[in-house]
C-alpha cells in the first residue's frame, strides 16, 4: 500500500519553478531513494511530505499529495503540527539542540504534552536503542548533545524523530556530513528501520542509493525522469539521461 501518492506536483519559489509535474507513489515500509544532481528538486519534493516548504516565504504549490488515510496533504483539515509528528525528518547536517542527549530525544514528546517521567524514560531508551546509539550514550544521557561526534549526533537526530513513532521518516542527505564509518552505521540502521517505517531518503551518492533503497527516483531540473525498483534503475535504466547520470557522465 502506498504511503503517499504524489499527483502532478508543481512548485515555485518566487518565479523559479523547482518542481515540474511530478507524480509518483511512495510504497509503505520500503526505502525510496531520490537521486539527481544538485538543484534537481529532490530535496524540495522531500520537504513537501511534512510541509516544511510552508516555512519558506513566497512558495507556491499546485497538485496533490494523497496520504495513507486518503486525505490531501495540503487540505485545511490537515493539522500541520500533527502531520509532522507522523512524518519525521532527519536533516543534512546533524542538528541536535544544544541540550542534553535525553532532552533532545524527549523534546518531541514533551512538546506533545507528555510529562510522565516513566513513559519518557522508556521511550528515550527505546528510541536510542532503535537508533543504535543506546550503548554509546546510556551512561551519559545528561551530557550536552553537541559534545557527541558527528555520526552520533546524526543517530541522535534519528532517535529524536523515531521517539514520536512516525509512520514515515524523511532523510535529507543524512550522511553527507559524515565520515565513511559513521555513514556505514547509519546505512545499517536504515536497513533495520525499514521494517517499521516508510523511509524516503535524498542522497547524493548513487552507491548509497543502490545499497539501501528498494525504489529509486531520478530527478533532473525539477522533473521526475524515471522511477522504479532500484535494481532496474541501476542495471537497466530506460532513459538515456538516467543512464548518463548513473554512469557518471554528469553530476
Amino acid at each position: 500500500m502506498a504511503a503517499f501518492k504524489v499527483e502532478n506536483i508543481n512548485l515555485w519559489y518566487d518565479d523559479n519553478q523547482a518542481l515540474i509535474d511530478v507524480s509518483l507513489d511512495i510504497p509503505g515500509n520500503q526505502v525510496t531513494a531520490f537521486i539527481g544532481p544538485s538543484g534537481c528538486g529532490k530535496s524540495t519534493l522531500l520537504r513537501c511530505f511534512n510541509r516544511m516548504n510552508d516555512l519558506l516565504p513566497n512558495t507556491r504549490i499546485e497538485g496533490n499529495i494523497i496520504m495513507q488515510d486518503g486525505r490531501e496533504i495540503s487540505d485545511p483539515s490537515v493539522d500541520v503540527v500533527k502531520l509532522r509528528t507522523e512524518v519525521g525528518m532527519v536533516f543534512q547536517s546533524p542538528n541536535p539542540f544544544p541540550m542534553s542527549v535525553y532532552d533532545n530525544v524527549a523534546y518531541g514528546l514533551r512538546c506533545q504534552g507528555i510529562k510522565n517521567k516513566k513513559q519518557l524514560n522508556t521511550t528515550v531508551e527505546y528510541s536510542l536503542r532503535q537508533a543504535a546509539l543506546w550503548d554509546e550514550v546510556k551512561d551519559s544521557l545528561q551530557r550536552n548533545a553537541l559534545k557527541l561526534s558527528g555520526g552520533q549526533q546524526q543517530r541522535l537526530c534519528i532517535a529524536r524523530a523515531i521517539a514520536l513513532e512516525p509512520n514515515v521518516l524523511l532523510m535529507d542527505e543524512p550522511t553527507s556530513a559524515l565520515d565513511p564509518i559513521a555513514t556505514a552505521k547509519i546505512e545499517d540502521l536504515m536497513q533495520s528501520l525499514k521494517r517499521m517505517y516508510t523511509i524516503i531518503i535524498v542522497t547524493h551518492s548513487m552507491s548509497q542509493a543502490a545499497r539501501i533503497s528498494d525504489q529509486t527516483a531520478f530527478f533532473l531540473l525539477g522533473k521526475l525522469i524515471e522511477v522504479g525498483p532500484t535494481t532496474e534503475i541501476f542495471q537497466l535504466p530506460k532513459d538515456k539521461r538516467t543512464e548518463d547520470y548513473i554512469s557518471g557522465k554528469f553530476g
Partner: protein
Amino acid sequence: MNRARRRKDFFRTAGTWASAGLSVLVLISVFVFVFSRGISTFSFDMLTDNYWATNYLLDIENGEANDFVPPAATDEEKYFSRKFGFSLVDDIDKENNRLMVVESMSALSPLHEGIIATAGSDQGKTHPVPLGARVRRIDYTNINGEARSAGILGQDSSAAKTIERLEIEAVSINGLFYQTTGGGIRGSIISTLMLIGLTLLFALPLGVSSAIYLHEIAPRNRLTSWIRAAVEMLAGVPSIIFGLMGVSMLFRITSLFGINTQSILLGSMTMTIMLLPLIMRQTEEALIVVPASLRMASLSLGASTTQTIFRVILPNALPGILSATLLSISRIIGESAALIFTMGTAISDNPKISQGATSLAVHIWTVMAGEQPNFELATAISLLILVMVLILNLTVKLLTYRINRKWQV
C-alpha cells in the same frame, strides 16, 4: 608616483591618523577630568549618606557634670570631656566648612538622654545623640547659674576650645544642637535602582516579545515593514521629547493609579518606551545568530511555533537578551532629560515608586542647575556613573564576542 601625489598621499594618511588620535585624546580627557576631579570628593560615606542634612535641637535633662574616665587610647586630635563623658574631633565637610563631630561617648554620658525640642510630631521623644553627629552648639549652665553656649554657633571655632570651655565653666549641659551629615546620594542610588528594576520589568517583556514577533512569526507583508519603520523612527526621537510624551500621555495612565505627580513609575514607563528600539534590536540580533536548522528540527518534530520559540530559540538567545538588559541599564543610568520631566528634580532621601525622585544623573543636574553649582558632588557622581557605564558596556562587548564564537564552532 610623482612627488606631488606622494605628498598628497602622505597628508591624507596623516589626516586619518590625526583624526583617530584626536578621538582617543577626547576620551582620555573626559576620563582624566572626571577621575581627577571626582575622586577627591568620592567616598564611601557619600554613597550611604542622605542628601538633606537634618537638624536636631535637643533638650538634655540630668546633664550635671560628673567624672568620666577617658577611653584608654585618646590621641591628640580627640578632645574628651571628663565632666560629660564624650569626645569631639574637628572635621571639614564637602563644602569646606569647619565642623565638630562626636567621636565617642561614655555609657552614662548625658548625651544619651537627649529629648527632641523641635516642634512637631517627634517633640518630647527621647533621641540619643548618635556618633558622628555634627555638633553645632552645646547649651550649658555656668557656675553662676547663667545659660551659655559653646560650639561653632557659640563662641568656639574648634573642638579643643569647645571642650576646654565646658571643662572650665559648665556645671551642667542642658541642650544640644546638631546636624546629620548631608550631601550624600543614598536616596538617588535607591531611586536609580528602583527605576532600573521597574523599567526592565516593563521593557523586557514588551521589547523581547515584539522582537520575537518580528523575527520569528511576522509574515513578510506591509504591516510588518511598517512596524519596523515605526520602531526605527522611535530610535531617532530626542530624549527630551520622550520626557514631554511622558508627562502628557503616560501621566494619564499613572493618574489612573492615583499618582498625580511626577513619579518613579512615570519615569520607568517613559524609559520603557525609549528603550524599546534598543531592546528589540539587540534581541533580534541574538535571534538572527540562532541557526535556522534548529528551528527546522524543532518544527519537524511536531513542535508548534511558540513551543519552538520558548524551548529552542529563547534559551539560545538568552545571552543576547542579557546584553540588551545590560545596555538598557547603562542607558537608564545615563538618562537625564526625559527623567527631569517625568521624575522631577527634587532629590529625595526616601524614594517611593509613587513619588518623584532623582536618579543619579538627574541628581547631577539638580546640583548643577542651582544658584551655586556643586561641582565637586557633580563630578563625584559622574565618576560613579562613568565607571558603571564603562563596566556595563565592556561586559556587553565581551558577551557579544562569546556569542559569535559559540556559533562559529
